[in-house]
């Protein structure tokens, strides 16, 4: 049950923050972290673009009450209406494709969270760890507070905010 490290990638794919909280992963050189950030950004974009679009009738309400798996919904939705009036939608109507969300090895799990503005948070945790979304939400909250409200932070630039570091480590230590 441990959080190994956090990486923040800006919307252009640049590494803006990298920090290790607990040992457990091998260290990379700064250059390798930059490559990792850029590569992940690209892979994420590809996974998003290969997300299949499901044909849906225009007349059908956008918010279908069935929020079950898209595979179960698609055959019933596509079979009945005429194909000429069909438009396309992502598996979950109303929610755009998210792209790669988790990646797992037997030593760690990588969880990615993308904000609405395109900033990506990558969290490296123990594979057995649960409730990662709670941690992710808190990290996002701390980022919104201590990075975005800091007048000395320039958007899209590397994050060097002492109070962000302090509150992040403090909160994670309090959890462990």
């Amino acid at each position, binding site marked *: 049950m441990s959080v190994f490290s956090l990486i923040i990638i800006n919307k252009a794919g640049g590494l803006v923050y990298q920090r290790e909280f607990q040992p457990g992963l091998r260290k990379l050189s700064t250059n390798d972290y930059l490559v990792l950030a850029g590569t992940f950004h690209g892979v994420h974009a590809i996974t998003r673009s290969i997300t299949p679009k499901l044909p849906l009738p225009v007349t059908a309400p956008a918010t279908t009450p069935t929020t079950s798996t898209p595979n179960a919904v698609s055959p019933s939705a596509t079979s009945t209406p005429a194909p000429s009036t069909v438009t396309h939608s992502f598996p979950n109507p109303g929610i755009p494709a998210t792209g790669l969300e988790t990646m797992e090895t037997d030593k760690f799990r990588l969880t990615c969270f993308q904000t609405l503005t395109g900033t990506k948070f990558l969290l490296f945790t123990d594979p057995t760890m649960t409730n990662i979304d709670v941690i992710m939400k808190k990290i996002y909250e701390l980022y919104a507070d201590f990075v975005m409200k*800091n*007048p000395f932070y320039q958007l899209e630039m590397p994050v060097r905010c002492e*109070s962000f570091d302090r509150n992040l480590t403090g909160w994670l230590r309090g959890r462990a």
Partner: protein
Amino acid sequence: MTQPARHAAMLSISNSGSNLAAAAEKQQPAQHLHTQSQSSQGLRVPSNRKTIYDRHLNRSRNAELSRASFAFLFAEMVTYAQRRVTGIQDLEKRLNEQGYPLGLRLLDLLFYRTMSSSTSSSLSSSSTSASPPNRPLRILPLLHLIHGPLWRLLFNRPADALEHSVSPETPNEYMITDNDPLVNTYISVPKEMSMLNCAAFVAGIIEGVCDGCGFEAKVTAHNQPTEMWPGRTIFLLRFGESVMEREKVLERAGVK
């Protein structure tokens, strides 16, 4: 109000004299607008014809402000002050000047509210619950006013410490400590500007309050981090010669 004029004259290096004049000018149109709000010429009036000047001053007494919106506003103020500055001292001076007119005005609001509240206040030691509190005449009541009521008005809690300089050479220096200033909550100052403390804005407010009371003073904010309180800030109040002289006279006269 001869005191602020003298203060402005003494600060020949800074242009806070013009700042003061600006504050005085601003107050003039404010009263002007008040009378004009009925005729509503050139002033946008809400549909119910109630402007901010029609509201009772105690209306926002217990109202609270969103911390996030204040943080964003203050961040913009810092960014604004940062434009074309020559250095950290210049930046702190600008922040101070933003706070100064606020302090002058807050003082009146503070007196008004303390007077109208029926509960006996801790404004000054001499005030009883029946009579309205007086304007502080000596330094100590003034400092208590800042440490207690002013801090509660601004930050909803009193300041953390009030000290007098121990050095015999600087009897005119007093220190007010805030362990975690609200204005600095979300601010991380970059390493190359480590001397900067954005609470210079609050120092400006204190300076305005002191000047408004007729105590000419220079107030600065200094970082004094501890293990427990990384954002601890000390506001150093340096009173002018004239204030110290008057203080001696008043002490002899037994004025409290």
